[in-house]
């Protein structure tokens, strides 16, 4: 059977249904979290990636299991795409001992080091150097893994962006810096906060490739990132891939979104990455309407199940307060 779609070598057509399901898992997970925050069932704060599912799923789809990622404060999607269980994630947001961080990290710090998720990060730009360091490990120990470093348009204005990418480029480290450009750093429009149109243009000053992809088109993301990952794995050093996308929700739970128009939001909703993937899969005959519906329903059920799991999980005891601290 000839391939109907242009896919990177790591991704086969048979994998696409799974990726489609991951997108829905992310969508449902985020919407559930949004609902619980609104109801006051989850405390603290959270940053939702609704609308950005394709850049997370598409980027990670091209990785091998041994590869690693560093994530951001808007990291639930990366987690799910890197294979995290929604149960453990939801439990973490509920602050329970069954959460990925035993209830001590919360939304911004979900990590699964064993599975190669080196952690979300509450510090904007905090992941650049950590990803670079992980890539250094890969290079020094000749482990062959590649590190994906997710960051936003806002983080590209941090000093750590420059220092880390410069370092990764001179040492030719196997790391790919993925900019999920969702147009706003909190309330700051990217076009007002930097003097170049694309973050990817900045790659030139480090002597590395920089490529812009349609962040709402999972296929474009997979091809762009796939190329960069192959390059990194081949020892040719880092790249920047910039996925243009949009977050449907506000920056965090308390955001009146005064800095953008409802019309603009509506325009981007029409570019819904999940719907676009579904259309292509159905049109290309890789998925029937019924199968697509079933996948969606399954994803929803799994997320619903995670709520039960979280709600029925034990709270940490006060004895746990001083666990895992050594100094």
């Amino acid at each position, binding site marked *: 059977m000839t391939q109907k779609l242009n896919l990177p070598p790591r991704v086969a057509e048979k994998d696409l249904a799974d990726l489609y399901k991951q997108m829905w898992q992310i969508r449902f997970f985020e919407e559930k979290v949004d609902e619980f925050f609104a109801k006051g069932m989850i405390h603290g704060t959270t940053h939702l990636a609704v609308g950005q599912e394709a850049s997370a799923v598409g980027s990670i789809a091209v990785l091998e299991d041994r590869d690693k990622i560093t994530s951001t404060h808007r990291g639930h999607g990366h987690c799910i795409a890197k294979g995290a269980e929604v149960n453990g994630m939801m439990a973490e947001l509920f602050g329970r001992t069954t959460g990925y*961080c035993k*209830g001590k990290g919360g939304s911004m710090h979900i990590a*699964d080091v064993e599975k190669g998720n*080196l952690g979300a990060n509450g510090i904007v730009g905090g992941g650049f150097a950590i990803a670079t*360091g992980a890539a250094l490990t890969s290079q020094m120990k000749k482990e062959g893994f590649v590190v994906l470093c997710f960051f936003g348009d806002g983080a590209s204005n941090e000093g*750590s962006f420059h220092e880390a990418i410069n*370092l990764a480029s001179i040492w030719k480290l196997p790391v790919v810096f993925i900019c999920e450009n969702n147009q706003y750093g909190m309330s700051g429009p990217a076009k007002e906060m930097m003097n170049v149109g694309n973050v990817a243009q900045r790659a030139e000053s480090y002597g590395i490739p920089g490529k812009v992809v349609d962040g709402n088109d999972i296929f474009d993301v997979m091809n762009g990132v796939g190329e960069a990952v192959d390059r990194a794995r081949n020892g040719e050093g880092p790249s920047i891939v910039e996925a243009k996308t949009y977050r449907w929700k506000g920056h965090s739970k308390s955001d009146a979104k005064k800095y953008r128009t409802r019309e603009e939001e509506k325009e981007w909703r029409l570019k819904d990455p999940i719907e676009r993937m579904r259309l292509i899969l159905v049109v290309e005959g890789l998925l029937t309407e019924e199968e697509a519906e079933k996948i969606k329903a399954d994803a929803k059920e799994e997320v619903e199940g995670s709520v039960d799991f979280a709600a029925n999980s034990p709270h940490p005891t006060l004895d746990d307060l001083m666990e895992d601290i050594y100094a």
Partner: protein
Amino acid sequence: MRELTYLEAVREAMSQEMRQNEDVFILGEDIGVYGGAFGVTRGMIEEFGPERIRNTPISEAAISGTAVGAALTGMRPILELQFSDFITIAMDNMVNQAAKIRYMYGGKGKVPMVLRTPAGSGTGAAAQHSQSLEAWMTHIPGLKVVQPSTAYDAKGLLKAAIDDDNPVIFYEHKLCYKTKSDVPEESYSIPLGKADVKREGKDATIVATAIMVHRSLEAAAELEKEGISVEVIDPRTLVPLDTETIIESVKKTSRLVVVHEAVKRGGFGGEIASVIAESEAFDYLDAPIKRLGGKAVPIPYNPELEKAAIPGVDDIINAVKETVNRL
């Protein structure tokens, strides 16, 4: 036994570890053929090569974060910061990343790294290259803080720091680099959190760190001539702190003088004084606790002023006499 300088002892500890453990490597500015700003790594690149004696760009934010990322993925990096003043630039990675990761990830992740850095005044390097900022680091749960004063201690404590699975800030005092003591050739470890009684006495206890240990010993020798017997304790590690040894000594002598070079205001001396005030040693105190520390002023360039900004031997002698009512 042969004598080594403090600087040679630090180098020997690193070299011995690197011969044994492939995961240990050093990164830092000008540590390659230059041998480091103070010559600590001189000759090491010849033995271990540029892969493991990793010369970095002037990017403290990136190299500190890279050390965190490498440590998190299986390496045991030693980061040399050229001057401890530059920790300001590496602060985010030490405070928000390295110190937090193990706890924030629910114990599922570790950061075994050592940040070595020369501290202190006395070299005419003025305000931005002469500070003693260790108290900052002791305030952060998740960072161990080591401050050796002798060559013997430096070697043993550095081995313990490298072996530790958690981030350790290792302060080397510039004026100690040239001091000598007997150092065994074989590798040995001094446990973190064990103070050393550098001199026994019965009339007063001095707790001193780094270069002040030497000044206190000089003061103690002078005081001996006047019939005042002084016990000098070097905590060696501030976090964890060996409170027991200090408390027992104060119970014995009933008098405490704390001496450090760091600015007295907010300095670690306040912590030691508080430990005593809160402990059972309180009822044995026969004089107010005396703290000696640097004056609240940036370290000046003029040599006389520079000297006057921090405690000297005479200051220590006077402080002890005051506490024993012999002034």
